[in-house]
């Protein structure tokens, strides 16, 4: 039967117009860059130099989710949770009640290691699997939809083989995706210039669904923070560098103008 002949009209649609549901980050400017947010269940590597705003970005991502009633989890390996919470309290977007009421669950990796009997300098395959199982257990049991691990670099230092790091990230990402949990893995890098790797071990960037790079750029004598989405599977996005401002209200992103940078050849921001 020819429906057109029957006068039934079809709106014109290009093939492949399917769009994945998004996890709206709530971070000012980031959802615009990502054309609506991070595709649900993605594992995103937020790689940045020290002081570039990785932890604040990760925490704001959780807070915005908690504001919308989502259960969130933060695994901290780089600083004690007590210190993390004290530092984050200065931001207006954060409310300690979110932690008290269990909307944001902050876990110290040291405590988790101790509970699992993983107080050792290096992890073997069994250890890695029990770590994955525990994280997945937590996500599954309390229905976590937003997860931040800060930092995956510190965690991976204990995993001596590159293959094991790959297995760890791949398996963890796969299981979290199955549970519909959008994850930000924070990674520490020493340089955010164009030739740098976006991870310490070289494998994180290949496994993750998305890469957000954070770094500093010198401009007219000032050190500016920038953010750039290098890769994000499942969505189109801007690849331009954006200036980050860490304000009391949270992270604010603004497009970076293409002038005034020192060593413009090295820092092709705004490209």
């Amino acid at each position, binding site marked *: 039967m020819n429906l057109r002949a029957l006068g039934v009209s079809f709106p014109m649609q290009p093939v492949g117009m399917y769009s994945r549901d998004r996890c709206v980050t709530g971070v000012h400017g980031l959802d615009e860059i990502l054309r609506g947010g991070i595709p649900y269940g993605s594992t995103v590597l937020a790689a940045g130099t020290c002081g570039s705003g990785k932890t604040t970005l990760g925490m704001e991502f959780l807070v915005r989710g908690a504001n919308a009633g989502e259960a969130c989890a933060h695994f901290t390996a780089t600083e004690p949770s*007590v210190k993390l919470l004290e530092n984050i309290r200065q931001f207006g977007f954060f409310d300690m009640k979110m932690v008290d009421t269990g909307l944001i669950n902050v876990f*110290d990796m040291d*405590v988790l290691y101790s509970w*699992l009997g993983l107080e050792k300098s290096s992890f073997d395959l069994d250890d890695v699997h*029990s770590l994955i199982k*525990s994280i997945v257990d*937590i996500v599954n049991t*309390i229905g976590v939809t937003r997860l931040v691990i800060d930092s995956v670099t510190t965690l991976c230092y204990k995993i001596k083989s590159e293959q094991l790091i790959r297995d760890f990230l791949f398996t963890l990402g796969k299981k979290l995706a199955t549970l519909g949990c959008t994850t930000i893995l924070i990674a520490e890098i020493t340089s955010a210039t164009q030739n740098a790797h976006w991870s310490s071990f070289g494998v994180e960037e290949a496994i993750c669904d998305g890469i957000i790079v954070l770094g500093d750029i010198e401009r007219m004598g000032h050190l500016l923070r920038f953010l750039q989405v290098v890769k994000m599977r499942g969505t189109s996005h801007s690849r331009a560098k954006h200036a980050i401002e860490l304000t009391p209200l949270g992270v604010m992103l603004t497009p970076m103008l293409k002038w005034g940078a020192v060593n413009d050849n090295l820092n092709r921001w705004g490209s």
Partner: protein
Amino acid sequence: MAKDVQFDSEDEEFFGSVGSFGVPKFDNEMRGGVPRGFTMIAFTDIGSGSELFAKQFVSPAEEAENTIYISTNEGQAEIVRIFQKYDWPLDINVRTIGEEYNSNVLEKELLASRYRLEGFRLEDIQRLAQTRFVEESNQDYLTEVTNEVMALGPYFRAVLDSLDFFLQRDDPARVIAMVRMLQAHAQLYRGLLFISVSTDGLSPKVKQELSSIADMVLSFQVRTVGTDFETSMIVSKFRNAPENLKILVFRVTPEEGITPETVERIA
């Protein structure tokens, strides 16, 4: 320079130059008892009665607060039961390392295995999210025990039953260093120190070193005679008194505990 310890003349008179083993017949065989300042090492067979002898050794407890019984295998309840049974003093210091190790280390390891195998329950996760600091669990029992004995004053009486716990977990050289320190402390403070160690799995080198440190070496042995067990105690070293080297066959009586029956001289 060696420490100079002053002894009260009244104490000297009260404690005398020898102390009791806690076994009167054994005291007689050893010409009065054990000289103050002596460190005794007992090499033991399983089931040879050395644990009972160790308890009997602290039973004279001239000064209860200056007497300590350290057990690595038994629990408090069992020790108290034996002391009550023989009517030995209950006010001495007792430390049960085995029990402490079970609760501090083994229970934690068991829980870790449960978490790894069965995962976290909701209440575990809630507790984990509220736990901000790692509990300190790296207890150095060897150092603790050494410090505890070395904190005892003149004429102390101490038992460490047994050294196996430390030899299985620590570097033997470190354990021997500890025994050396304890021996020096006993000598300086005219204390009496009894240390047991089982012969099973003990390396000849460690045995030789322990024997050379000790002022008195005993061996507790058990063998079958017909359908019975025969327990014996062999004194194979007695510093400056080779005439005390003997083999003593003993039995355990409900009234006196370890009771030597027949004696055979070695030298």
